[in-house]
């Protein structure tokens, strides 16, 4: 019998993560970003407010996607960090008199700091039990903040206009774009939300393209196998958990700066900050960067046109989530990318084979 290996031409291998299409999409992404930055010059206030909502939901979705879709940590308790971030902002500005812009990064730091001890406990729960464990922790946060009388206890409290207007740059926006204070506040929030969303997206993208990102893929695919290859699973999972907590906390701070009113039930709502986020990721396509973007846009459209139907809207959303999970588990983006073999944000390494027949 012939030696099959020797008969083949020599092959030259290259490992690539980006191809020409994705270089194009990087350029397009920059153009889109620039347009979004300049949008307040032309757009009305409603659109700006809608986009703030879209941006922070997308940022939350990317965080959850990194957590569940890559690190395999299926949390239904991320509302803990949204609420925590919001409350940190309220505490710093109302009680501490700090500037809201400063309070946002501090909210991220506090969230990360509290995520560490939280992880020590909930990481003892495996798989699906981890999910409910994170939910219990979020409930603990909610009940504890309901006891803090200085922040309004169970009924919550509001930010005074003097606080919401103290974001640096609002005066500049007022004169530069010739708008009133409330509109200028929205525009400032818009830019903050855009920055956080773009930052989250970039962070997730860079993490996934790094060496650690490779390890994450290994964890998702098979935990035991990854461990046997020397991937320190627990440390990577912990790092992802803490990092997403920090980002979720910052987004939470921004959300409640924009809302200007906080209460424990709203800030730690499992429906608003986890269920919606989960559906966004799953409907769009978990484990991809593109999926949550699509999911967030779909969710925004549904929210905008169907939310008036109240309970029926939520029933529809739940049904849609179930159907996608059962019949298209890779989400809408999965369907598209399968059909057209398309990747806009390549995070997987591709093996490129150059067959060199001359040396056969």
């Amino acid at each position, binding site marked *: 019998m012939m030696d099959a290996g020797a008969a083949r031409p020599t092959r030259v291998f290259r490992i690539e993560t980006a191809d020409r299409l994705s270089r194009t999409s990087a350029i397009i992404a920059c153009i889109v970003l620039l347009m979004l930055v300049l949008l307040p010059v032309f757009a009305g206030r409603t659109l700006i407010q809608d986009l703030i909502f879209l941006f922070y939901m997308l940022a939350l979705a990317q965080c959850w996607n990194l957590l*569940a879709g890559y690190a395999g940590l*299926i949390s239904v308790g991320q509302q803990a960090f949204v609420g925590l971030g919001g409350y940190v902002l309220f505490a710093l500005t109302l009680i501490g008199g700090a500037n809201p812009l400063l309070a946002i990064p501090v909210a991220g730091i506090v969230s990360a700091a509290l995520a560490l001890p939280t992880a020590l406990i909930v990481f003892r*729960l495996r798989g*699906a039990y981890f999910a409910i464990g994170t939910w*219990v922790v979020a*409930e603990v946060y909610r*009940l504890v903040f309901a006891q803090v009388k200085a922040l309004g206890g169970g009924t919550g409290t509001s930010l005074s206009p003097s606080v919401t207007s103290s974001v640096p740059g609002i005066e500049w926006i007022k004169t530069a774009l010739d708008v009133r204070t409330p509109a200028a506040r929205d525009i400032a929030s818009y830019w903050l939300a855009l920055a956080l969303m773009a930052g989250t997206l970039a962070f997730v993208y860079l993490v996934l393209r790094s060496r650690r990102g490779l390890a994450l893929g290994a964890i998702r695919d098979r935990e035991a196998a990854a461990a046997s290859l020397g991937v320190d699973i627990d440390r990577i999972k912990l790092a992802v958990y803490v990092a997403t907590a920090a980002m979720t906390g910052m987004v939470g701070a921004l959300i409640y700066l924009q809302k200007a009113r906080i209460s424990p039930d709203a800030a730690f709502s499992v429906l608003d900050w986890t269920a919606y986020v989960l559906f966004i990721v799953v409907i769009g396509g978990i484990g991809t960067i593109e999926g949550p973007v699509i999911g967030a846009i779909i969710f925004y459209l549904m929210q905008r046109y169907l939310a008036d139907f109240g*309970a029926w809207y939520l029933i529809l959303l*739940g049904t849609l989530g*179930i159907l996608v999970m059962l019949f298209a588990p890779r989400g809408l983006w999965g369907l598209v990318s399968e059909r057209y073999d398309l990747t806009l944000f390549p995070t997987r390494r591709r093996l490129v084979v150059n067959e060199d027949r001359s040396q056969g």
Partner: protein
Amino acid sequence: MTGFLDAIIQGILLGGLYALFATGLSLMFGVMRLVNLAHGDLIVLAAFAIFVVAERLGLDPFVAVLLAAPILFAIGFALQHVLLNRALGRDLLPPLLVTFGLSIIIQNGLLQMFSADSRRLRSGAIETASISLGGDIAVGVVPLLTLASAIAVIVLLNIIFYRTAIGRAFRATSDDLDVAQLMGIDVNRTFAIAMGIAFVVIAIAALYLGLRANFDPTIGPARLLYAFEAVIIGGLGSFWGTLAGGIVLGLAQTIGARIDPEWQILSGHLAFLVVLAIRPRGLFPRAVD
């Protein structure tokens, strides 16, 4: 001192209710490794089912539950067969997401049908009847019945699991799905029967939920958390452990409430986290996973 003793007794009795919540969850995990995020909402759904049967037919809830139980068995069987079996597999996300979606559908479906008003199951004098234990301590008949029912349910489930052919099939399927099929066990049907039985347990839990306090469509998730905490505190794999977990949770909540009524739920959660921190496998672990 009497106050403290009273808290202990009331806590144990409350634990009976939590054990009933938890037993269904424990059964689902034990047989099909399903962690059901809609569990609390299913209990509330069952409470509404009993409520409707009792109202429409003018029956006592204790009779209504007998009528509702077979209906709920059928719903559970169908739910597992049509929906949940498709979601189960090596991947954890589908069952979690599907039951999460179900939770939202049930909550909002109930809101749509019954509004957000509070309801209660009415059973006449028994609701307020109590037995004096001397001193200032008295125990309510309904809480006592709750605990007795929890114990009866667990005894019955143990008989089913360890003395019957279907119970053997439950344990075999939970041990090794592939080999169970080689024995001719129809896994989908076995899971559906297990879910049917879990729904009967849910019906019993719902009866006492509705007799002891008001309920409305939104209270499901909190019940899920109590049930889950009881299961984990007790340790996976044994129904008696689940009962013990329910009682620990009931005690923590009752004692917390004596210190400050606002701390009732919080002290239950904290007790759970403390147990998790010092005995991650629960107080009475049995299962090997």
